[in-house]
């Protein structure tokens, strides 16, 4: 097990180096950093001096190592657009996106898993057909349209929920949270549902497929023959065995949640990282784009590591295997 974890750690480090390299290339080759930092009235000599001072004339490898060590020390450089430190801009936005993403993921699991189990156990039921049809339409409707529909229904027609921003937030240290006020939750519901719907359909389809597979297996038939109570059969014997692939997908879905949070944040003007990234693309703010990538990749790698560790907790067979 230790070997496996070590291997994964090394892989993760390589992924991070690759992403850092991508971010570095962005910074170095897309547009000229010096012309971004100076105005029209700067003389060519001054520009050259700045170039030399920033170390932009050093060998490529040296520059990359310097860039990476700056990243490791949390020095993310300055935004071309606002001239603020990028580290500050991003960290201010992280809580909003994480809270949105986690709540969306929870919605997709809390609704998706039971729905998947139900549709697998009653494949011919009317409710099943209805749910399946809804998910097909759900997959075809783009996230932003779902957002608009929710805004229209709950924000405009019924006037129940706010349609933009985070509502009341509370500071816990440097973490700005909207999870502790009623107002904050009201603002969170629509974006989180929007973001969760697509993931929900994926979760449901996956759980359903896995459940149907497991229900056909010999040990379930045997458990049935033994007269194991149905609820115990469904949940202890069958569902437990679908969990490994489901957890894998949750790990993968995290990427989807982050990506679509760009769209959701744009629809609801949710002040998270996605909105920042979108602005930085519009203004070709390369440092922010690069750091966004690095931060997202870091979360990604972290979640996948956690998922790998969860396998050991869930699947006893994996713990035994290394002794063989």
């Amino acid at each position, binding site marked *: 097990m230790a070997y496996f974890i070590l291997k994964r750690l090394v892989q993760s480090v390589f992924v991070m180096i690759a992403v850092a390299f991508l971010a570095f290339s962005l910074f170095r080759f897309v547009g000229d950093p010096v012309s971004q930092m100076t105005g029209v009235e700067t003389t060519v000599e001054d520009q050259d001096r700045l170039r030399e001072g920033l170390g932009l004339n050093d060998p490529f490898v040296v520059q990359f190592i310097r860039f990476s060590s700056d990243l490791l020390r949390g020095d993310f450089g300055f935004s071309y657009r606002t001239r603020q430190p990028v580290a500050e801009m991003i960290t201010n936005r992280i809580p909003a996106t994480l809270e949105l993403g986690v709540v969306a993921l929870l919605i997709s699991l809390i609704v998706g898993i039971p729905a998947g189990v139900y549709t697998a156990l009653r494949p011919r039921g009317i409710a099943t057909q209805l749910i399946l049809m809804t998910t097909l339409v759900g997959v075809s409707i783009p996230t932003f349209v779902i957002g608009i529909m929710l805004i229209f229904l709950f924000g405009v027609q019924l006037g129940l929920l706010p349609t933009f921003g985070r509502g009341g937030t509370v500071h816990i240290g440097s973490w700005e949270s909207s999870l502790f006020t009623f107002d904050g939750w009201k603002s969170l519901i629509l974006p989180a549902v929007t973001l969760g719907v697509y993931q929900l359909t994926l979760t449901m389809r996956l759980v359903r497929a896995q459940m149907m597979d497991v229900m056909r297996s010999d040990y379930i038939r045997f458990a049935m023959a033994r007269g194991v109570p149905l609820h115990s059969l469904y949940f202890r014997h069958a569902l437990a065995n679908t969990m490994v692939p489901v957890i894998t997908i949750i790990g993968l879905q995290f990427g989807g949640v982050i990506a679509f949070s760009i769209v959701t944040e744009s629809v609801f003007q949710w002040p998270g990282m996605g909105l920042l990234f979108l602005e930085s693309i519009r203004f070709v703010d390369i440092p922010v*784009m690069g750091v966004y990538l690095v931060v997202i990749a870091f979360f990604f790698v972290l979640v996948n590591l956690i998922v790998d560790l969860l396998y050991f907790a869930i699947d006893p067979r994996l713990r035994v295997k290394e002794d063989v």
Partner: protein
Amino acid sequence: MLAFIKRREPFWLFVHSPSAMIAAFLTALIILGALFAPLIAPSNPYDLSSFSLMDGLLPPVWQDGGRSAFLLGTDDQGRDMISSILYGARLSLVIGLTAMVIATVLGVGLGLAAGYFGGRFDAVIMRIADVQLALPAILTALLIDGIARGILPTEIQQNMRVTVLTLAIALSLWVNFARTARASTFVEKNKEYVEAAIIMGQHPLRIMLIQILPNIVGPLLVIMTVDLASAILLEATLSFLGIGLPADSPSLGTLIRIGMQFLLSGEWWILWIPTVFLIVLVVAINVLGDFLRDIFNPGLR
């Protein structure tokens, strides 16, 4: 009637699947409408002289104040909604189809080669595919678009929007094709007909394109359909985010973004008609994709 069709053949299944027929009909209708937009559309939404502000914000014809000249109403500039949508769908379909074709050629080419040659080439291609698969398509497309904005000078950018957008979408969708083509090629290349071709001394390129490719077309066709829907959605999303096409040459996504401004003011048709149109198009293509999947992969269901 239709007795000449063999039972259980793809076409028989098609004629016996109402949802697939309806979906195909709607898709064909929209494609034809988009194709002949310059002939059918009552006015040209790109031509500023063909509409006037005086006709702005007219509701559809069945609502009070609607005029028969503008069946689905007009937007705030006085543009006829039908014309905007037909031209918008035209742009969306052109970008979606081109992106899908580029992604297919690129992905299938790399996948075939990776599967056929194996070894280090395969390893490199599949590593790249893995990394990109971890990044959702929309993020990749946004990134490519951002890079293009940084590299291209501003004057060229405006004229290159469609090209950049198409390439960004294509480059974020090729992975599916590469993986499928590679997996199928792995299976095919050990079959006797490929061995025979190798012994006959045929060129690897010929073996890949003439021997193997026709045998792996089935699953690729499914992905092409599904990815066409993805490409259209991706374009709509990017345009909605304001990253895609500008407002003077609107695609369906841009139309929806413009319509968002009227969400609160009661001019529902400016937002909802393009939205419904987009959803119908994508659902129809997805239903077709599902149908094709059932034909080529009966085991999946």
